[in-house]
Structure formats: C-alpha cells, structure tokens
C-alpha cells in the first residue's frame, strides 16, 4: 500500500471515531453529519485507489534511494501554456449566480458562457 493511502486511511479513522464520539457525547445531528462527511472524503479516494490498484505499486517517489534518472513516463501530447477559458468559466459562473439576484433573465446568458468555456477547454485539450 502506498504511503499516501495510509495517511488517508488514518484520516478516515480519525474522522469516523470523532464523528461517533461526538454523536454519543452531544446527540447533535449537524456536527455529526459534518464529521462523518469528513470521514467520507478520504474514504472515497482510498476506495478508488484500492479498486484501481493505482496505490499498490511502489513508485520512485516512495523509494528513498531512487535516482532522478529512473524516471520515465507516458507521453500524452501537448497541453497549452496559455489559456483564456478560465476567464469565461468564471464570468459564466458569476452571471449565472447573479441571475438569482438580478433576475432569471440572466441565467441563459450565464449558461451560454459556461457552455462556451467548457467547449473551449475541451477543444484546447485536443490540441
């Protein structure tokens, strides 16, 4: 098991125990849900890692004697050193959110900006 997985298991255990103790000490629902929700966060990653076996392999970064030259990886193709789409993504989010304040007439504009930004990101990813 990779080192990181062990940390995440530790976090899961802590939050589970804290949530359980909190419930029996206070019988207060909101805090209990929050703490158990905290437990779920690392648990989701751990379950994913274990199911896909991606955390079981020993990696050069866990090897105290590894050399930088041991490194070799898959080539995925280019990715952009510059991008403008985050700006449109945020603008779309703001306009969509503002539709709750200034009127739902803004919602289609915000949605259009969001879709445009997501399409832009996707097109950019494909080079």
């Amino acid at each position, binding site marked *: 098991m990779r080192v990181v997985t062990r940390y995440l298991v530790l976090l899961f255990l802590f939050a589970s125990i804290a949530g359980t103790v909190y419930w029996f000490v*206070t019988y207060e629902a909101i805090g209990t849900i929050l703490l158990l*929700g905290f437990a779920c966060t690392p648990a989701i990653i751990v379950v994913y890692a274990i199911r896909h076996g991606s955390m079981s392999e020993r990696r050069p*970064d866990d090897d105290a004697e590894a050399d930088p030259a041991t490194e070799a990886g898959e*080539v995925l*193709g*280019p990715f952009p050193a*510059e991008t403008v789409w985050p700006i449109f*993504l945020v603008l779309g989010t703001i306009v969509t959110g503002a539709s709750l304040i200034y009127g739902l007439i803004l919602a289609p504009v915000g949605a259009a900006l969001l879709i445009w930004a997501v399409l832009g990101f996707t097109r950019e990813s494909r080079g």
Partner: protein
Amino acid sequence: MTTILDRRRQAPSPRRGPGVVHRLVSTDHKNIGILYCVSAFAFFLVGGSLAEVMRLELMEPSRQIVSNEAYNTLFTIHGTVMIFLFVAPFATGLANYLIPLQVGAPDMAFPRLNLSSFYFYIGGGILVLLAGVAAAGQAAAMGWTAYPPLSEMRLSPGVGPDLWILGLVLVVISNVLNGVNILTTVFLMRAPGMTMWRLPVFTWNMVVVAILGLVAFPPAAAGLTLLLIGRRLGGLVYDAAAGGDPTIYQHLFWFLGHPEVYILILPFFGVITEIIPVFSRKPLFGYTGFLLATLTIGMLSTGVWAHHMFTTGVIVNPFFAAMTLLIAVPTGVKFFNWIGSMWGGKIWFAVPMLFSIGFMLNFLIGGVTGVMLASPALDYQAHDTYFVVAHFHYTMLGGSVFGIFAAIYFWFPKMTGVMLSEKLGRVVFAMLFVGFNLTFWPQFVLGQRGMPRRYVDYASGLGYDTPNLVSSVGAYLLGVAVMVFLVDVWRSLRRRTPAGDDPWGGYSLEWATSSPPPEHNFDELPKIRSLRPAFDRQHPELTP
C-alpha cells in the same frame, strides 16, 4: 510527474513572451503563484485602508467621520477581505510557486485548473468589494460571519449581502480546486527520492491545509447558498418562525470558520520552519515531531468549531472546550521545534529571521489568549468584546502577516532574481512590530474593561479613551510600515541587485535551481537523499 515533464519537453507550447497578457493567461505555476501573491497584497491594501478608517473613527469618543451603517460595512468588508482575500490566497500563491519546486515537479498537476482557481478567487474578490460599495442602505453590513436572522432580507436589504454571498461561494470554489491541485501534485508528482518524510515542512503544511480546505469549505458553501436561497427564493431553513433553525448556519459556517484559522496559520508555521533552521545554520530540530504536530493540529481543528458558539446554549460546551485545549499541545510542540532549531546555532539576524522571531512572539500571545478563551466560563465574559478582537489579530496579523513578510523577504530573491534591501527591511520589521503591538495590546485592555466589538462609538470616561487613542496611533504606524515596504519593493526592482541562485544557503530543492527558475523549473534535478537536497549539493563532503 514523468508524464507531464516528458510531454512538456517533447512538445513545448509556443509562448508569446512575458507581456501583461501572457502573465494573465499563462498556466505556469510560478506565474500563477505571483499573480496570487500580488493580488492578495492588493486586497491587503484595501482591507488595511478600511481598518485605518475604523481606527480614525475610534480614536476619540463620539462619532466623527462615518455613519453607523458605513461603519458596519467597513468591518464586514475588512474582515472578509483580510481572511478570505488576503491571508489565505497569499498562502495559496506561495504554495503555487513553491510546491512544484520543493517536490521537484515541472508544474502543478492541473495547470489550467490552477488558473481557473485564480480567476474564481479574483471574481469572488471583486464581488465582495462591490458588496461593500453598493448603494446606500444596500451594502453588506452584517459582519463577516453573516449570521441569520441579521443577514436575512428584512434586516439586511439590498443587493450587497447577495453579492457578498456569491463572492464567497466563488472563493470557496477556488479553494476547493486548489486543494485538489495541491494534493494531486504532492501525492503523485514528487521527484524520485522525495519521499513523504523528506518533504519540506512548508509543503507538508500545505498538504494539511489542502485537506482541511476540502473538508471545511463545502459545508460553508452549502450554508451560504442556503442563506442566498432564503433571501431570494423564500427558503426557510434558518427561519425559526417557520420551524427552521438559525444555529444550523452557525454550525455550517464555523465548521469552515475554525479550521480556516488553521488554514490561515499552518502555511506560515511552514514558512518560518523553513526559515529558522537556514538562519540558525542547523538542521530543523525534530522534523518528525513537527509533522506529527501539524497532522494533529489539522485533525483536531475539525473538532473545535463550536467554541465560537459557547454562548448560544445549544451545544455541549465541555466537549468543545476540551478539544480546543487539546489543540494547544501540538501547537506548543512547534515552539520547541523552533527554539530547538535555534539553540546552539549561529543565528543570522537577517530580515526573514527577524520576522520569524516576531511571528513567534506575537503568535505566542495570540495562542495563550486562545487557550484562555477556550474556557466557557471566561468566554461568557469576553465574548464579543475587544479581548476577542485582540486575540484574533495576534494570531492572524501578528502571526500570519509576519509570516507573509518573512516569506516575501526570504523567497523574493528566488522569484525575481533580485534582493530586497536589508536596511529598509529592518526598518519595516521594527515599525510593524512596534505598530502591531501598539495597536492590539491596548485592545486586550479594552476587552478586559468590557468594550464591545463592532460599536462605532463609545462614551468618554469608561476607561476606553486612552487605549483607543494608543491603538489608533499604532494602526497608523502599521500603515506607514507597509508604505515603506512598498518603496523597498519598488526600489529593489528598479536597482536589480542580483541575488544569485541561493543567497541564504537554503536547504530545500527550490534553492538548487536558478533565480528565477527556468520554465520547467530544473535543468538538472539533484539526487535527493535527505531533508536538505540543496544543502547536500552545495556541501557533498557533509552528505551522509
């Protein structure tokens, strides 16, 4: 790590040069880190100016310059800006710049997500500022905690509170995206040999901060969204008259709000723990103990949120008092690490070290008063008085902001390739240290004498006059210190005294590359065999 390194090397993307437009759209982590730091500092100037206006108003009894409503807006926007738009984003900027360098990676794991996160932060920040300048009677003026029923439409009308909520939700999104990016980078992109137990302490602390962010920010976003739904769509979750419960909001808010204190301070624990050993010419004392203390603080900080709710009467006070007292133990361990690292060392009192020592002294007072407030009996007396204001500022301004200045003086040469002035830096430190203590120590006295926070005015003859006057004078000294610092930065960038790659004799990996580093960070990565790879490279004769 290899994947991204290889694809970048094999298929480099064209660049348009280092113009302003390129800076605004570049996905290079170093560029994004600098954007964060500069923007956060700009927000600091805004938030600090609002504080100066408040101190001007409070310098003497009776109302002089701002209306009641304007004063409420001032402290609402001041608190929000300083916490969510200055300290935390500055730490994010440092993390963006330093983490890939410290772990030996060519960039963050998700560069475009990284830039998106920056723009979510800027968008949120602009909305928060707009919330403060909305038309008269419509600005956000419900305090940075925005408790219902005060933040409901009938008591806080207008668009200001809505813009404030929307702005904070964007900041939350930014923080969550950052958390994902930091964790993925550290967990999956470390250089060969950079095991988790060789990670620099700053990076380790940012890992804990990222986890805290992922755990604590989403509930706050839920709480804020429910508030917006209540204001605009008639939601009743917080409406006691309709069977709702306003304390649900307090739980959701403080489940972020208290870990947020550690989100704000842990990065700077990391910063000064990087600095102190370097300027003591010794290895860090008790690396493992330091990391275990950081992990313990991170975990315990998720169980202390309701100590802000002692006086509500709806929580089990002893549980939260015990958890809060417990968290002082790992925090105390860190003081032993710092003192142990200095003990017997050849201490070099350069400006980063001065700020680190200032941090320790100020934070100690903030921490000890925090332990006092963990006692419900005392908290009932001090709640909503200036004692709490002083305690909080001793941790955040005396702690985090001194950490920020330490970080700037330490890593500015790495980021820009030029040195800041030692002489002016000492002046800035002296003015900040004296100004800070002049401003906030009298506020302990005010709190002890019962002066409530968030009041625009006070009567003369209650023992409030002199401490308020001294506090305001201190605040202006702080303002002057920040101006001197800006002059220092401006002069240094004009004069361009070369820093060299490693002006301090640093230990961690970022000191093993050029200043500023090349686009993909390292022309050649050194072997990593200890906690101090840069030191090992400089002194191979001392390497085990």
